[in-house]
């Protein structure tokens, strides 16, 4: 067991973890943060995407022990985040989800795309969404929701 101390959604957390425990299982099973979903567990489906030190990362491919002293943000930790709130609104408006399994990570990925200004065209958005698999929607409505959010946020902060 290894002692770790990290920030999860802004709160300090300490725990003892076996080194083989993935960040995803740590979040889901020890912290009850079940909005982080596990699909493939080898980095392809994207459902487990969270932010580690502000950057998107696959929580299935990170060991919890390696997150010592890092800041982790899961889908539960975005209250008041303007980009996520706009994405939630537009996902709702455009019916950009069906079963919802991919949605938390889809929102986190979309937020990162928009903030890095990589959501300027349908092609750019679709290219990036190759790393987040959705088996329900066919992506059309997801792409629409992200494109619209990117436009809204671009208007609010043209130099962002």
């Amino acid at each position: 067991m290894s002692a770790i101390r990290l920030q999860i959604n802004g709160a300090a957390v300490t725990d003892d973890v076996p080194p083989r425990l993935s960040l995803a299982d740590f979040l889901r099973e020890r912290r009850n943060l079940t909005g982080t979903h596990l699909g493939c567990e080898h980095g392809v489906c994207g459902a487990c995407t969270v932010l580690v030190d502000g950057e998107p990362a696959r929580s299935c491919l990170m060991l919890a022990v390696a997150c010592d002293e890092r800041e982790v943000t899961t889908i539960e930790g975005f209250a008041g985040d303007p980009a996520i709130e706009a994405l939630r609104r537009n996902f709702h408006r455009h019916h950009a989800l069906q079963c919802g399994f991919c949605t938390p990570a889809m929102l986190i990925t979309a937020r990162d795309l928009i903030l890095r200004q990589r959501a300027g065209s349908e092609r750019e958005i679709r290219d990036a969404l190759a790393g987040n698999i959705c088996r329900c929607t066919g992506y059309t409505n997801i792409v629409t929701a992200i494109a619209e959010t990117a436009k809204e946020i671009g208007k609010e902060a043209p130099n962002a």
Partner: protein
Amino acid sequence: MVQFGRIRGNLRGERQADGTSMKAPAVDYVRARSLAEAVDLLAEHRGEARVIAGGQSLVAMMNLRVASPGLLIDISRLPELSSASDDGDAVTVGACVTHAAIEDGRGADPSRGLMARVAATLAYRAIRTRGTIGGSLALSDPAAEWPAVMTALDAEVMVCGPGGRRSIRCSELTTGIFETKLAADEIIESVHIPKLSADARWGYLKLCRKSGEFANALAVAVVDPTRGHSRVVLGAANGAPLVLDNTSRLVSEGGRGDISGAVAIDLDRAANRHFDEFQRNLHAVATTRAVRQVLQ
């Protein structure tokens, strides 16, 4: 038919007494405080230890139980491995520099945009933020981008072991599928990449069915007239990156001639790669298009 419960047990891994499901095999973990300490630990635990940086392949392999190291030596937070430095006629990129850092152009770029372009096609952003150039070279997945691209740029890796440091040319580093010249107790410290001259040109084409997947074919062409360097390299080539000598010569001569014919001669010479007709066609298309980008 297998009962659902049994399938679930297999997929989810055994359930532990503490209520946590486990997928990867049990392993010990140590975060190295210096490269020297990492080298010492690797020598001490020779054979059972694996170095982990981003872990984007290693943890996946552990989750799938293809890899089961006894000890993980984490080098990802060593500051000396995490930056790039401009050495005048070359750039030294630390082994733990991430694909995302290269994609974003943080740090010096020796390649006039080639490396950023390559990084942007490598897996997905959430992988690129953690995966490292050194890890990619050390693993040498035959379909990976960096072994082929670093070969084309005539880069070399600086390697640190118990006996000290040595350098290995990237064109010689990868010897086969997941096989390299790295000794079991050596760690890649940095990649030394000669700078392309102002009149250099490059071409890059990766063919895969879904963005971010491992390549089915991957061709990179570099021509640098000032330095007299020109090299066309094929990745995803059933082994080490394949340097296409004949096509490289055609490119160095300005590309006047039959590109497809030159590529065909190189692919004929690579009979030991056992390309089937489909693969051969993909490789020929990727190479021809990468070469055309250079000659445009």
